[in-house]
């Protein structure tokens, strides 16, 4: 199913063409999951009138992403599950459980390779990981971050780790890496907040030359806002301190691993050709036009072993460009605004927490 999308220039499909192509494949996934995942079938019957053939992409049934935290959703036999992915979450928080079989796992790899290949090239580059290897070496700490680092490491070689297990900068490692590889193209990956607080802040005055590097980072801007750093500040500071220009932020989630919304030349986040985004009005849940903010719904053809091909996230965003064709980038250019703010309801029953009560 993915092949015909992967054969195209990554991030090139215009919205109408993309949706015309994807509709049939998305409907096929809906039908497949409805046949093979009983809880999904019940949701389709109870909330969507049993519909499996949407007339357009906007009419596709969607699941709230939170459902993967409360329910075991899989569309393959238990013994076909090769890996269970979990979302990142603060300690004690309930995490998503995503069940991946070998086909879906392969498609995740293909999807990711297609996206990353577009900016890194076909050859694997030397890689400076802006994190610690402890995040995946110690099974006790193995989490979504570790899995993310490991997943990205497949796309690089001669891995060096820029942070120590205590998240201090490993200055000697960074210098060794740059001595060895700094004169040619190299690849860096890290999570936005760690990249900023542990790598940039600690090393910004050391006169490092990262001008041949490509930095890919992800992880959300919520904590960054507290530091008054947005994407443009982030880019400007890296450029000034390290002469680093090739920086790509991305938006993605474990529930649709393999589909990454990659930062295009205009700074907006673009879905890969086998994926799309719809913004929904928080009052009517109808699709909003370009420029109007709402709740982000993500669509992807990758999830085969679990019904995750159409998901309503808990993030707000806005489509700021459509088929802008900057350097060949087309589709919906998304800006992620952030998490939907928490709401507080009234009620007779006090929640006894640290904050309230006694």
């Amino acid at each position, binding site marked *: 199913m993915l092949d015909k999308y992967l054969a195209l220039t990554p991030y090139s499909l215009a919205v109408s063409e993309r949706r015309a192509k994807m509709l049939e494949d998305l409907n096929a996934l809906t039908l497949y999951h409805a046949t093979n995942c009983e*809880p*999904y079938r*019940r*949701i389709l*019957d*109870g*909330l969507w009138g049993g519909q499996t053939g949407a007339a357009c992409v906007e009419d596709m049934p969607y*699941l*709230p992403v*939170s*459902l993967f935290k*409360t*329910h075991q*959703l899989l569309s393959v036999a238990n013994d076909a599950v090769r890996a269970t992915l979990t979302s990142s979450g603060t300690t004690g928080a309930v995490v998503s459980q995503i069940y991946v079989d070998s086909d879906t796992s392969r498609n995740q790899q293909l999807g990711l390779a297609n996206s990353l290949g577009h900016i890194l090239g076909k050859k694997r580059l030397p890689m400076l990981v802006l994190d610690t290897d402890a995040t995946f070496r110690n099974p006790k700490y193995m989490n979504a971050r570790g899995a993310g680092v490991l997943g990205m490491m497949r796309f690089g070689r001669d891995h060096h780790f820029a942070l120590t297990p205590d998240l201090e900068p490993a200055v000697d490692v960074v210098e060794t890496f740059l001595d060895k590889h700094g004169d040619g193209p190299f690849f860096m990956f890290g999570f936005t907040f760690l990249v900023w607080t542990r790598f940039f802040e600690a090393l910004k005055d050391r006169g490092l030359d990262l001008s041949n590097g490509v930095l890919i980072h992800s992880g959300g801007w919520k904590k960054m806002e507290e530091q008054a750093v947005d994407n443009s500040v982030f880019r400007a500071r890296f450029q000034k301190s390290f002469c680093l220009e090739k920086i790509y932020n991305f938006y993605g989630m474990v529930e649709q691993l393999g589909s990454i919304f990659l930062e295009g030349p205009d700074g907006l986040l673009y879905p890969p050709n086998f994926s799309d985004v719809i913004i929904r009005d*928080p*009052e*009517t*849940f109808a699709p909003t036009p370009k420029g109007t903010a709402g*709740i982000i719904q993500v669509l992807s053809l990758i999830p085969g072993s679990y019904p995750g091909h159409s998901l*309503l996230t*808990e993030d*707000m965003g806005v489509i700021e460009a459509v088929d802008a064709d900057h350097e060949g980038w087309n589709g919906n250019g998304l800006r992620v605004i952030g998490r*939907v*703010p*928490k*709401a*507080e*309801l*009234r*009620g*007779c*029953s*006090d*929640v*006894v927490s*640290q*904050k*309230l*009560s*006694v």
Partner: protein
Amino acid sequence: MELFTKNGLQPIDPEALVAQVDALTFSGRPPFDPKSVEVLGDLSKRLIRTPLAKQAPQLVALGFWLRPSQLSLAVKRFNAKLPAEARAKARGIALHLPPQNVDTLFVYSWALSLLAGNVNITRLPSEMTDNLSWLMSTISEVLEPHGLAKTQLFCSYPHYSHMTERLSSRADLRMIWGGDAKIASVSKFTVRPDGLSLGFSDRKSFSVISARAYAAMDDAARDAAAGHLYNDIFWFDQLGCGSPRVVFWLGSPNNDRQDLYRRIDAIALQKEYSVETATALSKISHMNERLASAQASKATRYSNRLSVLEAQIDGTLLDSAQGAGMLYDVSISNITQISPVLNRHTQTITHLGLSKAELTTLIQIMARYGGYRLVPIGNALSFSNVWDGVDLMDHMTRQLITQT
């Protein structure tokens, strides 16, 4: 730590607050002192005329509840119950711990206790909303001319200040509102050895509608019913103890089900009931979860305000407190079928169109299995002197037995 004064909330030293409370022992007045009645009458008038009526109809409801005619009924009932050789007196110092996020409940608890003649210490809800701050300055204005401000303390303090513990040890009466967990955590601290602590625990409520009666109603009657149900459901974001979580249709409603919910939804829209995005998403998640678990068969999202899940009767039906306009819809053919949802946590059953015989059966099963109030729709959240089966005025007073 802060104390409400005529100049608003003012910081106060914990020791000063405790000293002020200590000085109030034996400062009570006789029950139904004309001064208390006047204060509450004055407050009632101002609440009924509140400029915040549109955004906070609960203030107007409170005002009506405090009308002198209403209060004199309570007095009459109380006196009628009092044995001939007994005289009522105030209980003493009362500590009110209302829910931290409902902005009017504390007034009911406090007003009855004022009427009983008690000295009152009320812990205010944690967030000073516009409604609360208007309400507090109004209370302060009505107390001041009667010289009662000194014996009616309203304070605010953080949980780590140990004030609940210190104030409890001085209390002759403690009223704990806010659910099981709150009662458990406050009950670690004792009241005076001869004091009384009352806890109002988590309660669940629902509504029973006769499909036959609804089918016979004309448009005006249906709109009126929807208006009552709107109030019952949406005041307090459907999280009040009396807020209905389930609508049981007695008989087959067929398309009247959608007819009623559309009317309720239209009123919610007209009343500008707003739902924050996180709440809307949480309701969508809830519907998906219940469908996925086969705990509901059909979900209808009328709008962001009202969603309805069609379900079968089962003992856990009332356990979910989603709130903000998430109704369960269940059809039954016989009123006795609701027995499995009745238990000691059941509070209010609101009814519409039930026959006398059906109500009689309902009362019988409530007496046996659970439930404290059976009232017509529209009254789910009306406060009553008898709350969760407890006669409040009885407990807010003591009796002096005289044999001469």
